[in-house]
C-alpha cells in the first residue's frame, strides 16, 4: 500500500511540475529542499548528491510503512487462510514495517549501500585494511571487531524499527481490547509520533554511518 502511494505521488510530481508552483509541488519542494540541507549539514558537499536520494527514499518509505499500520481496517479485517497446518484467521492487511522480514531487508540494503559508498570513496585497499589489519595482533583484533560491529549494525537497524512498530501494534491491540472508546486516542497520537521518529532515526543513522565510514583516515 505504501508503494502505491509513493508511486502515485511521484508520478504526479513528475508530470505536472510547472514553473509557478501548485500547492502540492510547493509542499514537496519544501520537503525535499529541507531534507537536502539537513543532510548537507551532516555530510560534505561531495557525497550529498549521491546519498540524499537513498536517505530521503528510506525516510519516506519507512514513514509511510509505519503510518500505514494506523489506518482503519489494517490489522482488524480478518480472512480465513491456511497457515502452519490448519485453518486460521489472520489479518488481511498489516503494517508494512511490523514484519521483521522487511526491516531486516532494509537493514541489509542500508549496510550494503554503506559498504558501497565506503569502497567508492576511500578505495579497495583502505577498505580491506580497515577490516583485515595484519600489522599487529591488537590491530587484527580491532579489525575483527569492526566486522562484528557491521553485523551488529544490521541487527540493530532491523530490530529497532521492527520492535518499535510491532510493539506499537501490540499496544494498540491491547488498548482497543480493553477500552475501545476514547482511551486509544493518545496512544494513536503516540504511534504516529513514534512512526515518524523511527523513520527519521533510520535515515539519520544511515547518513551518520556513511559519514563515519568514509572519514576513516
Amino acid at each position: 500500500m505504501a508503494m502505491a502511494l509513493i508511486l502515485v505521488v511521484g508520478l504526479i510530481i513528475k508530470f505536472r511540475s510547472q514553473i509557478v508552483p501548485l500547492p502540492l509541488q510547493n509542499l514537496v519542494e519544501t520537503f525535499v529542499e529541507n531534507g537536502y540541507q539537513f543532510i548537507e549539514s551532516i555530510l560534505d558537499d561531495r557525497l550529498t548528491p549521491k546519498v540524499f536520494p537513498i536517505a530521503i527514499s528510506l525516510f519516506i518509505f519507512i514513514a509511510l510503512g509505519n503510518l500505514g499500520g494506523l489506518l482503519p481496517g489494517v490489522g482488524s479485517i480478518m480472512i480465513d487462510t491456511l497457515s502452519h497446518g490448519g485453518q486460521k484467521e489472520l489479518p488481511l492487511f498489516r503494517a508494512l514495517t511490523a514484519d521483521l522480514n522487511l526491516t531486516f531487508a532494509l537493514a541489509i540494503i542500508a549496510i550494503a549501500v554503506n559498504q558501497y559508498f565506503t569502497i567508492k570513496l576511500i578505495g579497495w585497499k583502505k577498505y580491506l585494511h580497515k577490516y583485515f589489519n595484519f600489522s599487529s595482533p591488537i590491530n587484527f583484533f580491532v579489525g575483527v571487531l569492526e566486522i562484528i560491529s557491521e553485523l551488529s549494525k544490521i541487527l540493530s537497524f532491523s530490530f529497532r524499527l521492527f520492535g518499535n512498530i510491532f510493539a506499537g501494534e501490540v499496544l494498540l491491540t491491547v488498548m482497543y481490547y480493553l477500552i475501545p472508546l476514547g482511551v486509544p486516542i493518545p496512544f494513536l497520537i503516540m504511534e504516529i509520533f513514534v512512526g515518524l521518529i523511527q523513520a527519521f532515526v533510520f535515515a539519520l543513522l544511515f547518513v551518520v554511518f556513511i559519514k563515519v565510514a568514509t572519514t576513516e583516515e
Partner: protein
Amino acid sequence: MEPQVMSGLTMAIGGLGPAIAIGLIVSKAMEAIGRNPEAVSKIQTNMILGVAFAEAIAIYSLVVALILKFV
C-alpha cells in the same frame, strides 16, 4: 518459572538501563541548549541520535520478551 512471568521480568529489568541512559542523554542535551541557545537544531539532532541508540537496547529486551511470550 513460567514464560509469562519471565517475559514480564525481562522487559522490566531490560527497560531500566535504557531509561536511565535516555534521562542522562537528554539532561546533558538540555544543559547544552541552555548554555548555547543558538545551536539548538544541531544539539537536537545529535540528541535524537543518542536516544535512538539507547532505545535500541530497550527494544532488544522487548523482542526477547515477545519471543518468550509467543514461542
